């Protein structure tokens, strides 16, 4: 900690926060947005037998959640390496 300039740690944290906010926006949109708030609107569209709003609420949001975490983990591993804070 002591030998690392303070600004590097702050930069790392800001990059982390920016990535996090972007992904949490998607997280919010697919679940609370498509699954609840836009439910009635989306139900006029269909995927096979699924009404679209219903599909997001019971299937689609979950698939997106999984992708979000793996994407975050990969991006953060790259960020750790860039800032030489990876723990190896």
């Amino acid at each position, binding site marked *: 900690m002591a030998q690392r300039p303070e600004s590097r740690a702050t930069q790392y944290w800001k990059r982390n926060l920016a990535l996090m906010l972007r992904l949490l926006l998607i997280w919010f949109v697919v679940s609370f947005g498509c699954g*609840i708030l836009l439910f009635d609107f989306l139900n006029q569209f269909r995927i096979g037998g699924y009404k679209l709003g219903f599909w997001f609420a*019971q299937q689609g949001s*979950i698939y997106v959640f*999984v992708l979000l*975490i793996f994407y975050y983990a990969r991006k953060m591993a790259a960020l750790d390496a860039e800032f030489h804070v990876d723990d190896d």
Partner: protein
Amino acid sequence: MDLQLLTYIVVGLTFALYIGIAIWARAGTTSEFYVAGGGIGPVQNGMATAADWMSAASFISMAGMIAFMGYGGSVFLMGWTGGYVILAMLLAPYLRKYGKFTVPEFIGDRYYSRTARAVAVFCLIVCSLTYVIGQMKGVGVAFSRFLEVDYATGLYVGMLIVFFYAVVGGMKGITYTQIAQYCVLITAYTIPAIFISLQLTGNPVPQLGLGSTLSGSDTYLLDKLDQIVTDLGFREYTTDVRLSGLNMFAFTLSLMIGTAGLPHVIIRFFTVRRVRDARISAGWALLFIAILYTTAPAVAGMARLNFMQTLAPAAGEPLAIDERPQWFRNWEKTGLLAFEDKNADGRIQYSADESVNEMTRVDQDIMVLANPEIAQLPNWVIALVAAGGLAAALSTAAGLLLAIASAISHDLLKGIFMPRITERQELLASRVAMALAIVGAGYLGLNPPGFAAGTVALAFGLAASSLFPALMMGIFSFRVNREGAIAGMLCGIGATLFYVFQHKGFMFIPGTAFLGDLPPNWFLGIEPNAFGAVGAVLNFCVAFTVSRLTAVPPIAVRELVERIRLPDHAPAAHDLELVIHDEPTGR
């Protein structure tokens, strides 16, 4: 082979496996007991987390609830998966970096206060104990149906088995047992779903089957379901909003932040080697969970359809009592399914209209358990479902009991009251604490406050309103201090408990609810189970306000927060121990 015998064999084999693993991987040190020595791989931990977290509620109750709630049941699907996104980004990596044994320990250090730690222990015990009740009920239901013993006896057998392997194994034994339990439960869940999907739609993938047309017709399964339930006066399956959009929003949010704040889930991420492993491990956990969670809505829709078609074989022609199928008779014996021929016409009228409805009891929990019988699947599938339900309940119960026991022995005894006890004494204390927790949970399991997932949903509300905000502010804010965190946690959990008790009865004792469980009395129309989100907002607000009005935290706390934000040099759990031990078995 006789179903009864087959079930005994399958369940017996899985129990033997769990106990074998627990003995093989028993814990010899506190590090092994609390965090499995800190050397679990991310994929293994993901699998163990999936089992730890998918409980009797997920396995037995959830599809049943969705079956009868339709779209409204989506709150459980989104809430119990979306929480992992928050956990992976906002909590798990930093708490792993901090690198100690328990959640209250972090709160105690970050808020430089034993009081904060004690409050965190209180919150942890309240939500974990509430949660464990649901598991106990699940064990009782599974035993009573499949092994034909009564509910109470089933509960005692379950308590005994949990007692045995949670006490011997500690986190290390529990981790490897949970991996085995995940395999059992996911097999048991997906096999019947695949068969049923094939029967109804010809598509072997349940997730696709639910959106397909019924075999031999052009009608979509969901459209048929919507039509058949509305014919009997029930609300349309795919658009049945649970109370209101706002209530669904609050409920989903409660479950999400509750998932992220549940101590028994968080401590699973203390068992991996590096911070990076904690992030990716959350991804694996959610992937393993998603396999069940995307299958569940298919099971729900298909089970509801089968159930409705049994009771109303043709339009306007209810099921004749003499013609009711064998599974129907089997479940009557458990009391979970009951009818009364009110108009004495020899037929069972099933309707949303209470005055003509003759199905006096349809327990939602039976939908998953009876599913293979309803679909006339072979006996070994039914036996497997019994084993799967028990695996789900036992794995979660063990994880919860560990969280409770470690909070009592590590945080209360070692951390606050008796800092001088030796490691051996601490290990003994945690085992005693576990035994007490099992007895308490068993008592509440015999007097259950509502159906299994209802209780579990409440535990999420409590975790959401107390622990999650304290943990998140501890990482993301330098400014929130001791006074703020303590006031926030107490207000959050206090408001949530008060809201639940005033509607559901003090400690769920019937008759002590002073406002009655009536929707008109609900705040903004939000049901008690969904109130955790409101409690969490209150927690955040109180904590920020009180912190503003009181002293800035000491400089050492600022350094602690700066340190946990960076992933390098994470302490390994076994480095924290001064105890020297041989290479543990089971690695």
